[in-house]
């Protein structure tokens, strides 16, 4: 069996990162042609873990489901969960491929998977559209990953969530940019897209534009520096902003395999 750290890492890749292939499709219309007459399911699995996920391809779009598909078109089984994690982290790890008839589905999916590399810290696009896409994906990934940390039993995050009253951590890019939130309440958590409207955020990180958000989320500037430069506004509990900032750093540490 894979160890707890690898299980948690896989959980973030499979539940927080892999579903972002749908965002790629929403934001890049050129990718839609890859789904012309598509049909099939690409399964990702590891021999030493129960965790897995599959991507369903149809002409209408992509869908990502957790678990094992009853009859996938093609299955990529990694020898160990650690290898699967390395694969999603952009490293070299070759899986055993079964169901060669599903190869076209994998080939259709491949450009989407490659686009996910944009999430890696060292990928710094120059094009403003690509920067905006990275910001959108990071916002959704980070909020989702924080929730997954809690649900996956990460000690620090679970402890924080357990003692938390009903609180919203909202991230918003103004001027038509994306928004995402994390809700925590007495041990439970939920990541959502858009603006949570039922209550005021406990912490609200507001980026005036996508460019500023990119600079902050890629850690070109610290939060303090970004606030000083007007690239970020913080509303609500400052101490909460610090706490969530530390947990966000933990996501990066986990996904890059630093812990």
């Amino acid at each position: 069996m894979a160890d707890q750290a690898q299980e948690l890492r896989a959980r973030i890749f499979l539940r927080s990162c892999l579903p972002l292939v749908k965002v790629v499709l929403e934001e890049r219309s050129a990718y839609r042609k890859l789904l012309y007459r598509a049909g099939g399911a690409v399964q990702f699995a590891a021999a030493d873990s129960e965790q897995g996920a599959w991507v369903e391809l149809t002409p209408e779009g992509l869908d990502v489901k957790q678990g094992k598909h009853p009859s996938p078109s093609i299955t990529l089984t990694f020898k160990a969960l650690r290898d699967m994690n390395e694969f999603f982290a952009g490293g070299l790890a070759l899986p055993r491929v079964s169901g060669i008839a599903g190869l076209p589905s994998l080939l259709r999916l491949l450009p989407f998977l490659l686009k996910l590399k944009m999430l890696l810290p060292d990928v710094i696009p120059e094009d403003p559209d690509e920067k905006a896409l990275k910001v959108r994906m990071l916002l959704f990934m980070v909020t989702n990953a924080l929730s997954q940390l809690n649900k996956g039993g990460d000690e620090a995050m679970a402890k924080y969530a357990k003692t938390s009253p009903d609180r919203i951590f909202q991230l918003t890019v103004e001027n038509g940019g994306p928004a995402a939130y994390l809700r925590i309440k007495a041990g439970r958590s939920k990541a959502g897209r858009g603006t949570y409207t039922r209550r005021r955020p406990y912490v609200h990180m507001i980026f005036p534009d996508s460019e500023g958000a990119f600079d902050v989320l890629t850690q070109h500037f610290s939060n303090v520096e970004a606030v000083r430069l007007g690239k970020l506004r913080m509303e609500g509990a400052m101490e909460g902003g610090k706490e969530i900032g530390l947990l966000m750093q933990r996501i990066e540490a986990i996904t890059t395999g630093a812990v």
Partner: protein
Amino acid sequence: MSTATPTAGKPAKKAAKATGLTWTIADADHMTQAEIYGEVLTQAALKDGRVVALTADLAKSTKIGKFEQKVPERFFNFGIAEANMFAVASGMAETGLIPVVSTFAVFASLRAAEFVRTDVCYQKRNVKIIGTHSGTSFGQAGTTHHCTEDIAVMRCLANMTVIAPADARATAKAVEAMLAHDGPVYIRIGRGFEPPCYKDMDFEFTIGKSNLLRDGTDITVIAAGIPVLQAVEAADRVKPDGVSVRVIDMHTIKPIDEEAIVRAVQDTRRLITVEDHTVVGGLGTAVADVIAKSGKGCAFRKLGYQDEYSIVGYPEDLQHRYGIDADGIVSAIGEVLKQDFEQDEDWEDE
């Protein structure tokens, strides 16, 4: 809603001058709400010949003896005849005077209730009423002298404005606002000896506009009168535990600051009201009315006398017993934070 800085129970280091007044609060820590009221009223009478004071054998207890000394020709003692006093006050108002009636809250709101309704409110006469010894501020005098129903009685009377200032400084401002207001006004204050809540006179007091004393996002405590300071202390006490509490001084209970309440519901989704009064018909009920009208869901708790009469005792002991002191508010905050109130229980990540 305006913002102000409360002392959270710490004594004011330096007394401040009240803008627009000739008197000063030399040391408000040693003056009761009633004493301040007596001072402000006397000064107002010296400036404005229309101001007259009426009492029913309680000039000393309600601290308007100074008025009698300074402006004896405009001071009227009716003996123990409260109903008659309100009838006369109504007639005085009709002639253009500004009668200010001072008596215990229990007598103004209950014994003389019909006259307040028919002669003052129904006629929309410019009569001002100061109910002292409200709530259980005169706890040791016994239940007959407690007054935990006056807000409910007064706020159900049409045309009546109902105010419960938090401390002596707020009382000074409330009396000024009351005299400037055209129409019946009821101000409820304590017996005295209540610790200060506002550290100086540098805060706004507008009838119908609450004061934000602490901002927070986890829960809102709305208080009126003496419990405001207790709410501030409770908020400060739970802050180190990471609980972010908004505290609102809802000094005007009618007309109530609906905007501040709806914003608090929207922002924090958890509300507690605290009043030195029965929870039936008082501040909590007024706030609940606004919440219901808004159609927004929230967890809600009313602290006060839970449809019962208070036992006899010192005010601080009674406040503790009935959960309207800082201890009780802290306890209620913990409970309401855990309370579920809506079907927003979808925990599936998007």
